């Protein structure tokens, strides 16, 4: 039987691939989005910043910031799922093209509170050209979502 890879080598490869994906996108850096990884599972984190407020009276997060967080989480999850097999096979996955959003529908369930938000995306269908992704976002309680979204994405063609 083939000896399993040392755990550090596996982690280093996956974290480096994820990092290269995130570092390449200025908007992710601007918004301060992070992604926690457990195996192949990603959780997006939008750390609270004062600039994210949309209603200073309440105060509440801006719907646009929430939408941006959900859409970014969907794109990162989709890209990550797309690159996983190639990454695990030891291929270079840096500089891959990102999927493009076709449409995105956000359902605002509760007021976004001025604190960190988390999101997880599920790829419900991913074909050669199109993908459908659902995203859920929460703050304090995983079961009390404050927003969810579904979007369709155009996959980058392999030959590009």
């Amino acid at each position, binding site marked *: 039987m083939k000896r399993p890879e040392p755990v550090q080598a596996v982690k280093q490869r996956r974290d480096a691939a994820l990092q290269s994906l995130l570092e390449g*996108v*200025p908007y992710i850096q601007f918004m301060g989005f992070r992604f926690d990884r457990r195996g192949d599972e990603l959780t997006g984190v939008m750390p609270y910043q004062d600039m994210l407020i*949309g209603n200073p*009276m309440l105060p509440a997060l801006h719907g646009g*910031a929430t939408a941006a967080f959900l859409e970014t989480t969907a794109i990162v999850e989709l890209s990550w799922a797309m690159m996983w097999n190639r990454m695990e096979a030891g291929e270079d996955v840096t500089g891959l093209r990102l999927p493009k959003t076709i449409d995105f529908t*956000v359902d*605002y369930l509760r007021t976004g509170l001025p604190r960190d938000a988390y999101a997880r995306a599920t790829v419900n269908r991913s074909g050669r050209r199109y993908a459908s992704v659902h995203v859920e976002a929460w703050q304090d309680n995983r079961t009390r979502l404050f927003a969810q979204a579904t979007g369709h994405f155009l996959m980058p063609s392999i030959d590009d």
Partner: protein
Amino acid sequence: MSNERQTKIATQFIGAIPYSRTLGMTLTEIGDGRATITMPYDDRLVGDPETGVIAGGAVSALMDTCAGAAVMVHESQPIGTATLDLRIDYMRPAKPGDMISAIAECYHVTRSVAFVRVTATDADESRPVATATGAFTIQTAKAAE
């Protein structure tokens, strides 16, 4: 609605919203359930490093803000609004370097909900970059909790 109220809303609207201010939005026209807001091109908002195209998320924020502004100046004079849902269709990438303009219109308003349409364009105004439709809450003084 009085012009005075509209002008007051127009000048205060963006300044009072930290996220919209951060993205450099400017409210250029407002009144009777309609609003126009522009957002300049900014390298920090790029979503596709290969093409330099602005992230969909930033365009969403512009459209959400513009829709909310249109609701606020509807003749029913809400004291507040919040997005219930927003669907955005991305027709084509915005040209890198171009300012993006969004025009929103409340096309139907009930006592508790406003239905809004938004169109976003870059310098080529004949072909939309994105369109959106949304439902927004109407908070009136009477209904305020």
